[in-house]
Every structure is written in structure tokens, then in C-alpha cells.
């Protein structure tokens, strides 16, 4: 509450309140002694700060062409080219990241479930629904191997996992949309885009450097080579 009041009072001292806000505040000030004290504190601090003497500059800060740090105004194209270069470089990194993720996604479904086939769902971590299905199937003595083969869509993907398994019947695999999606090749960025982005990043960077150098040279020739 105090900080909110202090903010309003501070703005009041600087004439930053609207006439209606000022009027409301003045009405409160008539009856609220705490608010009056707060106003006095703020007014005092403000008054003291306005007494700070201005120091005379110890020396002139004019720039001389001979100063090594002095360079001519940088052309407007330089920041734009730098930005374009950085953007192209970031996009290039993004393409590598996308391709890396796509490769990982492609390799994951083939590698992970293999140890669980017909082995009762061995393997660390939480069992997947497919592994549970496999496990249940293995524990059910009444079910034949053929039945297991028809109920597990995984076996259609890696038939070699069970050496003794018979060839699958043609009507057996009932692929779900999820499985179809897993099977489709992931989207990757063609290498040509990476080459183009890398080239653009380098080109814009070189152009920015060249424009910067030229402006520096023009400035030096104007002031120092007379």
C-alpha cells in the first residue's frame, strides 16, 4: 500500500497526474497524516537531489581523426547484413537439428521392441502396451503360437525375431494408423538447403565486413590522408 501511495505521490510532485487524480489525492491528503508524511519525505529527497551541483567537464570530449577508436558512421547496410548472416547461420543449425531428430525417430521403432518378442517382455523400464500383450500371450498356455502371431502387429515388422516361427498368414497384419505413421519415412531437409544456407551466411558476413572496412577507409582517407 505504501509503495503504491509513494508512486502516486511521487507522480503528483512531478506533475504527472491528471487533474482528476490530483484532486482525489489532495482530498485524501487533507485527512491522512501518514500520507502527508510520505509526501514530505518524497519532496525532501527530490529537493535535495535538485541541489546537486553540476560539475564542469574535466576536458573536451571532441573526437579527433587521429584517435584510433574513431571510425566513420557505420553504413546502414552493415547491421542488416550482419542480421541476415546470423539468421542464415541459425537456420542452418536448425536444419541439422531437424535432420538429426528425424534420423533418431527413424531408428527408434526398429531397435527398441526386439528383445521383448516371445521372451516374456524382458527389458528395463515400463513395459509398452505391445510388450504387455506379448507377455500375456506367452503366459497363456492355451494359446497357440499362431494366435500370438495374429494378435501381435509387431511380428509383422520383424519376423526374424523368432527363429522357429512359421511364415505369417497374409491376412494376419492389421496395421493401425499409428503403425503406418511410424513406418512412413520422416521428413528431412535436403542437403542442398544446407549448402545454400551455409553459403548465404558466409556471403552476408563477408559483405558486412567489406562494407564496414570500406566505410572505415573512406573516413580515414577523408581526414588523415589529406
Amino acid at each position, binding site marked *: 500500500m505504501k509503495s503504491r501511495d509513494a508512486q502516486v505521490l511521487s507522480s503528483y510532485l512531478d506533475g504527472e497526474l491528471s487533474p482528476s487524480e490530483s484532486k482525489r489525492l489532495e482530498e485524501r491528503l487533507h485527512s491522512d497524516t501518514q500520507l502527508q508524511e510520505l509526501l514530505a519525505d518524497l519532496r525532501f529527497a527530490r*529537493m535535495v537531489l535538485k541541489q546537486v551541483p553540476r560539475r564542469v567537464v574535466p576536458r573536451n570530449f571532441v*573526437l579527433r581523426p587521429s584517435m584510433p577508436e574513431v571510425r566513420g558512421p557505420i553504413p546502414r547496410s552493415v547491421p542488416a547484413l550482419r542480421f541476415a548472416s546470423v539468421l542464415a547461420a541459425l537456420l542452418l543449425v536448425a536444419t541439422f537439428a531437424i535432420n538429426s531428430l528425424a534420423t533418431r525417430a527413424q531408428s527408434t521403432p526398429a531397435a527398441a521392441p526386439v528383445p521383448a518378442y516371445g521372451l516374456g517382455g524382458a527389458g528395463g523400464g515400463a513395459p509398452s502396451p505391445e510388450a504387455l500383450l506379448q507377455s500375456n500371450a506367452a503366459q497363456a498356455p492355451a494359446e497357440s503360437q499362431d494366435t500370438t502371431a495374429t494378435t501381435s502387429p509387431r511380428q509383422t515388422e520383424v519376423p526374424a525375431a523368432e527363429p522357429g516361427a512359421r511364415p505369417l498368414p497374409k491376412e494376419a497384419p492389421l496395421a493401425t494408423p499409428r503403425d503406418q505413421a511410424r513406418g512412413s519415412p520422416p521428413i528431412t531437409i535436403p542437403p542442398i538447403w544446407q549448402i545454400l544456407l551455409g553459403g548465404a551466411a558466409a556471403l552476408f558476413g563477408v559483405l558486412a565486413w567489406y562494407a564496414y572496412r570500406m566505410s572505415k577507409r573512406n573516413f580515414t582517407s577523408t581526414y588523415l590522408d589529406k
Partner: protein
Amino acid sequence: MDESALIGAAQKGDLDAFNQLVLEYQDALFNVALRIVGDQDLAADATQDAFLSAFAHLRSFRGGSFKAWLLRTVTNACYDELRRAKRRPTIPLERSDDGEKGSDSPRWLADPGRSPEELMEASEIEHAIQHCLDRLPTEFRTVVVMADIEGLDYAEVAGVIRVPLGTVKSRLARARLRLRECLQGFEELLPSSLRLQGEAAA
């Protein structure tokens, strides 16, 4: 030549035109830098860096208040100086081994490295205010320097330090309250006229 013509010429690389602007604004920039960094040498460095940077990036100035644009440049230069000073700490300003309860006592102002004449010349009130300013967080100090010492209005301060208007109001009020609290320790140093005004206001 008026200011906009000087800026236009300086944007094309005319150093003489820019130096006329330097002469016009160096006093304001140096004083702002001095109050933010609290040290004359650091303030001079920040001011020089600000003008160097301003000339190099003059083409990014797209109208509006040139003074505000320069003040933004010097504020950034001051932040750089403060960061550099923080990385290379020197002798602490306040003495902590004298057994005094707080640092609000004016006795810490005694500087054995200064001659009596210099001490005589130094304004005690200025030192006291600077001491209190130095105790504020940098972002509070910047706002209070811009508003109360340099006399900018809230919108200009917001433009210089690129924060919303509400933030300026909040920081300024809190900075003033903290300064009031700190200045209580230096009341005997304040000119009698100021003390009387303060009492009357209370």
C-alpha cells in the same frame, strides 16, 4: 547550423559537425555519467566511449530527441564501466573496520589520499548525495539521475532507458524513499535553508 543539419552532416561522416554536437551535450552527458558511476575518471571514460559509439552508430538515429538518444548511449557506457569496475574491484569506498554501526556516518568520507585543501573544496553535501546514490541499485539510480538531476520528464526517462512508464514511476518513487532514508544520516551536512524547507514540508 541548426541541430538537425549538424546531425545530417555528421551522419555523412562529417566529424567537425559531430564535434559541434559534442560541445553542446558533453556537459549533460558527463554529469549524468558522474552521478551513475560515482567517479570522475570512470565518468570521463564513459562519456568519451559514449561519443565514440554515438558517432559510429549515428546512422541508426532516426529522429526524435537527440539528447535522449545520447543519454541512452552514455547510460549504456556507464553500465559497461560499472561491469568492468565490478570485475576489477579496487579499494572499497566504505570502511568496515572502524566499529561504527552503519555506513551512514559522515566519518567514512574522510579520505587520507586527499589534501586538506581538496577536502575543503569538496562539497560535503555533494559527497553525501553521491554516497546515497551509490547505495541505490543501478536501475533506480539511473532513473533518479535522469528525472531529478537532469530534469527529464517520465516519458523521456522511459525512452532513454527503454522501460514502460509505470516502471519509471515505480522506480523513481522507491529510489526517492530510499534516498530520504539514507539522507537522514547526513542532515547536519545539509544547508540550513534546505533543512528548513524539509521541515516546513514535513
